[in-house]
């Protein structure tokens, strides 16, 4: 093996190890230093040391223990530096156990603190997603850049700025207080789901699905559900993502062209994944605290997942679930989806009334969703010219190249 190839093999090995060990090492560092930004820097230094030493010295017998030991030594050094710099720190530290006695073994709560810090509301959405993938997912900057199709420097900047923002806002390395818990957990779940949807239905670019990004979101969602097993919405989010991901194989043709739900070959849906989705939704329901937003969305996705065809789908039940969802989490997108379900359960005329009401509210103005649904309903009602005009409007508004192509084809086919 050439030297470059050997270095590359070690790097891939470290990347793999870090996905497994990184979050716990970073969490332990953050607890020892009480400083999220410093912990993340030290963790990256440990990785850099491994990358510098292992190609020549060989990969240690227990590489995870090596990384942990190096990280720990860095934490102790940082602690000593702080002690020397700051007399007061020394006084406070006096009563603490010596460096070797620093409590190190990370607990799940430390990883949970990482999650809440990385998804803190002072950060932008992009920063939350990048930081979550980095510290909770254990991904490298290069891997994150590849997932979001942005330059490596962009991700680096996002992470550096995010750490500065957290420091400036003096965000503590803690789980939220009980009175903030619900809202903060929702924010965390929102970050994971945004990551998933960005992969599931790419808003920009020439690919409709980025399964790698969606799979990372799903993995982090499963980790999160394990960290807060008493939270129904965490399990429900996993269920929703499992159901949606079960259709990946059926959602695009080999050349990347999207296939819409009605035309998908349902035999290509991943039954194992659907089974895991149902199990996760059952875990959420078993907690007996009722269904909220993600559980209702998961229940709708389950209706599709278990239906043998579009015609045999329980559309009446889906309409009902959308009605409840509309009350729990009112949104024009939910109403639009309810309209589609109504068109299947009752007929296009009843659905068009809902869509026209939405159009007059102007809530979805500027997006391709409303005109594309309206076009579909008009087409079914035989109002072909109006339908074609709606599809043309929708195509002009679509930001994803593949979506635009589908809508243009729909207009041309009428």
């Amino acid at each position, binding site marked *: 093996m050439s030297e470059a190839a050997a270095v590359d093999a070690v790097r*891939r*090995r470290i*990347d*793999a*190890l870090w*996905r*497994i060990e990184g979050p716990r090492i970073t969490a332990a560092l953050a607890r020892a230093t009480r400083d999220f930004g410093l912990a993340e820097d030290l963790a990256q230094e440990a990785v850099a040391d491994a990358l510098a030493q292992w190609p020549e010295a060989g990969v240690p017998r227990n590489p995870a223990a090596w990384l942990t030991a190096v990280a720990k030594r860095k934490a102790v050094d940082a602690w000593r530096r702080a002690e020397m710099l700051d007399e007061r720190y020394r006084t406070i530290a006096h009563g603490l156990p010596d460096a070797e006695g620093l409590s190190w073994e990370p607990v*799940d709560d430390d990883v949970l603190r990482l999650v809440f810090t990385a998804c803190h509301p002072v950060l932008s959405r992009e920063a939350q997603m990048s930081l979550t993938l980095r510290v909770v997912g254990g991904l490298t900057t290069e*891997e994150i850049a590849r997932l979001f199709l942005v330059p490596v420097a962009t991700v680096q900047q996002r992470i550096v700025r995010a750490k500065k923002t957290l420091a400036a806002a003096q965000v503590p390395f803690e789980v939220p207080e009980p009175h903030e818990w619900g809202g903060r957990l929702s924010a965390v779940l929102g970050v994971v789901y945004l990551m998933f949807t960005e992969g599931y239905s790419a808003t920009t670019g020439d690919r409709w699905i980025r399964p*790698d990004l969606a*799979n*990372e979101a*799903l*993995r*982090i*969602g*499963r*980790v999160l559900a*394990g960290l807060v097993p008493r939270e129904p919405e965490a399990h429900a989010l996993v269920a929703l993502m499992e159901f949606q991901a079960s259709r990946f*194989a059926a959602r695009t*043709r*080999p050349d990347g062209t999207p296939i819409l739900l009605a035309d998908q*070959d*349902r*035999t*290509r*849906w991943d*039954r*194992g994944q*659907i*089974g*895991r989705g*149902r199990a996760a939704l059952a875990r959420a329901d078993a907690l007996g605290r009722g269904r909220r937003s993600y559980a209702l969305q998961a229940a709708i996705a389950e209706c599709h997942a278990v239906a043998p065809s579009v015609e045999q789908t329980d559309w009446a039940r889906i309409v009902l679930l959308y009605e409840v969802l509309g009350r729990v989490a009112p949104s024009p997108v939910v109403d639009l989806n309810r309209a589609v379900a109504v068109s299947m359960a009752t007929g296009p005329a009843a659905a068009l009334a809902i869509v026209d009401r939405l159009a007059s509210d102007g809530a979805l103005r500027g997006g391709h969703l409303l005109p594309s649904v309206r076009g579909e309903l008009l087409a079914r009602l035989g109002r072909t010219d109006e339908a074609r005009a709606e599809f043309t409007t929708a195509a002009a508004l679509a930001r994803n190249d593949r979506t635009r192509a589908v809508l243009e084809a729909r207009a041309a086919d009428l």
Partner: protein
Amino acid sequence: MKYMFIMRATDEAIEASKQVPFEEILNKMGAYNESLIKAGVMLAGEGLADVSEGSAFVVDFSEEPPVVTDGPYGETHELFNGFWIVQVASKEEAAEWASRCPLGPGSKLEVRRVAEADDFADFADNEYIQKEALWREELGKP
């Protein structure tokens, strides 16, 4: 990507494992499975019942029609006794998880990538590929 870890053990290893308290094996395997679940990578896994209970048999296709026998288990050097399916980002990550499995001398994990739809993309329109998917659906109903 998905990988399957196929657990194999020699007859001697299986005999040796019977000297270890079963509870100890349960605890170690339980902790390993829990680490896979907590990391969000475990998709499936099963352990297979001991062949000595007599539930195992072999269908041999070297003749037509195939012959069902109690199996050449006495002669096999390595017995397939369980599996995991994990979802990971790389071959290296699969290797890392596999090497953490609490197994001892005489045991092996054979690690294989699970073929996915993309592997058959060139044959997606093939009648038999589609039929196979249909069979799988019928068999795999949750």
